[in-house]
């Protein structure tokens, strides 16, 4: 999967909660933490990235809402 498209898709889902700037920054930040390099992401890397973002969101929105956002992120990157 194309990294830029994945980040765009994740940013679009997270922006209503985190704001566009933080959504983009946090997606990029998690990529660095997961040592994701290059322009392409494997499905496992996308899964790990979405999981990391979802677990961070948990403390702000609660487990159920975070799970819903994770599902939405998965749907969004499915089309990337």
């Amino acid at each position, binding site marked *: 999967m194309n990294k830029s498209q994945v980040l765009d898709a994740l940013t679009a889902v997270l922006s209503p909660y*985190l704001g566009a700037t933080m959504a983009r920054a946090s997606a990029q930040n998690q990529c660095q933490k997961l040592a994701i390099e290059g322009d392409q992401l494997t499905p496992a890397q996308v899964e790990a990235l979405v999981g990391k973002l979802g677990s961070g969101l948990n403390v702000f929105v*609660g487990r159920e809402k975070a799970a819903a956002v994770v599902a939405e992120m998965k749907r969004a990157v499915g089309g990337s």
Partner: protein
Amino acid sequence: MRHFPALAGAAGLVVVAVFLPKALFPEAPLYRDWLTEAFFTRFGALSKLVFLAAALVFSHRAASSFDEANAARLPWRFLSVGLFAFLLGQSYLAFVQVVLGQPSPYPSPADAAFMMGYPFFVACFWLFIRAYREAGFPVGTAAQHVRIGSAAALGLAAIGVVALGPVLQASVPGLERALNLAYPVFDLLILVPVSILLRITFAFRGGRLWTIWAAILAGFISMGAGDILYAYFVTLGHGDLEPIVDALYTLAYVFLALGCARQYQLSR
């Protein structure tokens, strides 16, 4: 419930529209003949109670919407405990003012309730900072937060020394003097973590998380300003500040209710 944020916003505008002109034009016929002191006493007391109760209910529900293991649950719970203590204090004051028709007593049992609430507010903000820092979002480094907190502590201490000087020197009974100092000091203790939380949550501007925290932090800033003005009002006999003090307290509770309602809407 869905419309509560809009309702709270409208209520905030009404509060400003009612109290601010009274502070600016106290002798206007409107305030002399129609909106009398009795009206303001009832309006102020009841609106504070309504919005404090709303803030309490929504913060309690927000806390309950997080599971036991979630690091945000305890600070939301502490916030609701602090609000409960404040609701007890305001209920006593409303009873005296509205039911007994007497002026607000000071000091009174209400102050004991308020004093019990403050430590929970201070603790909840430090717990929020810890929880939000550990969430893994880029919200600034620990060093940045220490610098912001230190700068805020120094700035607020300077403001406190200047603002509370006259309050310290006033010849009032010991308990009253202690309370006149305790309220602003607690507010300053709250505003240090609030300044760090402003840094953290400002990073979320444009999103719903920012709208929640902007309201909650605005609530505590209004409360702090109200406490400092109240200390002046009581100690130095500035009766002209009373409408502004009432407006600041009421706005504080409106903002808190708004922020807590938004959090509950987000996390339920």
